[in-house]
Each structure stands twice: as structure tokens, then as C-alpha cells.
């Protein structure tokens, strides 16, 4: 399982790729920051299209292991996360550290591009917003693929889309 609601266990992830043949292990940890675009974040909530996360992560792992002489592991946490919590962890072990670094970097980049996970930020001012590839979803700031790009009548776009806290 690539998705978990439990705190990520980095030691276990590292152990899962290490072996006596693979002496170099590169890893990456993405943790929850306390700020985003100048606003104070108090916590996050990650949600996912879980079955596709499993399939897409398995593809990324298989592609990386075919491309480099590595063993790769990754995990992404969903649900409620606090500041400093690890949201994602990637580990890549190889006999050659160059390949370990390349594979580790590749996996985190592909994960961000391909794996269906979404993040909702809870701000200190009480508002809550979906975050989309580094942008908040709001009427004027959304990029092409963000909600709101379809309508040309700007009166239909709220200045900022405030989402309710989920049930």
C-alpha cells in the first residue's frame, strides 16, 4: 500500500529498500510547512483517489526500477496532518549513489505530476482552501486547469473560494 493514514515510518521505508548489495540510499521527505504564499497554515488535509494512487505509484516504481539499477519505495500519508508531519517519503537504494539520487528525484517529481492526491490548507484566519500545484484555488489566481477558468463572466467567480470543512 502506497497510501496510509498513519504517520510515515521513515526507518521502515529505508529498511525496505536497503540490502547488502545496495550500499547507497537516497531519500526524500516532504513535510507540512507552516506557511504558504505568505499565509499562516495551521494544518492540512490530504485526500486521494485511492485506487488510482496505488496503481500509479506502482507504475512509477516499476518504471524507475526498469530505468535504473535501484530498489524504490514510497508512501504518501492522507487525512489530517499537522505542521512538521511527513506527508510523503521516497527511498531509492542502489549500488551506485548516482542512480539512487536520480531515481529518488524522479519518483518524487512523477508523484507530483501523476498521482491523484489533493491538499486542503487550513489557515490561521479560519479559512480553508484547496491547494493546486502550489496555487490556491481562487477566482483570479487559478491557473488554466483550476476551477473557474471556464467562465468568462467574472461576476460568477468568487474573489476567493472558501470551502467548508469536510464532515
Amino acid at each position: 500500500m502506497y497510501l496510509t493514514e498513519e504517520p510515515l515510518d521513515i526507518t521502515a521505508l529505508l529498511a525496505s529498500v536497503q540490502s547488502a548489495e545496495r550500499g547507497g540510499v537516497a531519500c526524500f521527505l516532504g513535510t507540512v510547512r507552516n506557511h504558504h504564499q505568505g499565509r499562516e497554515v495551521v494544518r492540512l488535509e490530504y485526500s486521494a483517489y485511492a485506487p488510482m494512487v496505488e496503481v500509479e505509484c506502482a507504475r512509477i516504481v516499476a518504471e524507475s526500477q526498469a530505468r535504473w539499477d535501484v530498489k524504490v519505495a514510497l508512501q504518501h500519508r492522507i487525512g489530517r496532518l499537522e505542521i512538521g508531519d511527513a506527508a510523503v517519503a521516497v527511498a531509492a537504494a542502489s549500488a551506485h549513489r548516482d542512480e539512487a539520487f536520480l531515481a529518488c528525484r524522479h519518483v518524487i517529481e512523477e508523484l507530483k505530476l501523476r498521482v491523484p492526491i489533493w491538499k486542503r490548507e487550513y489557515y490561521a484566519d479560519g479559512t480553508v482552501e484547496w491547494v493546486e500545484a502550489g496555487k490556491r484555488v481562487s477566482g483570479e489566481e487559478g491557473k488554466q486547469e483550476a476551477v473557474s477558468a471556464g467562465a468568462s463572466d467574472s461576476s460568477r467567480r468568487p474573489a476567493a473560494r472558501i470551502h467548508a470543512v469536510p464532515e
Partner: protein
Amino acid sequence: MPVTAPFPITVRVLLFASYADTLGFDSVELSFDPPATVGDALDRLRSLPGGERLPPKPLCAVNLTHVRSGTLLSGGDELAILPPLAGG
């Protein structure tokens, strides 16, 4: 030879995150006369309340695989409309 009328197909459409908020639901079954594409399903969604706010080319997946909007749908497909990803 007589032309057989196409049998309508039904696909399940899943919406996530901001798109589910925008449309007000996270799952719906839509029926189409084949051939129907992912783009056709998007057009149908755009005709629903809030659907006009979907972007021109959202990320889409059919049966857990990323697809382009020209991809043909088959009966029983699971079509997911994916807001910009924010994992990691």
C-alpha cells in the same frame, strides 16, 4: 443490411476535491449513445449547475489510467475528473 441502433453505454463519473465542491457531488452515472469520448462526458458535466466552471482541459483518468479527452468510453468505465494534483 439493417443498421443496428447503438446500445447506450453507462459510465460512472467521479469528481474529487474542488471539482466535487463545484458540482456539488462526487459521483454520478451518465449514459451515452456510442461512440462517446471523455470530452463528451466533460461536455455533459458542463451542462450541470456549477459545471461551467470546470476548466477547458481537466486531467482525466479512465479505469485508473490517465487519458486524453479524445479517449473513447466503454460501458462500465470509471471516468475520474481530477483537479490539479497537490500530492507530495
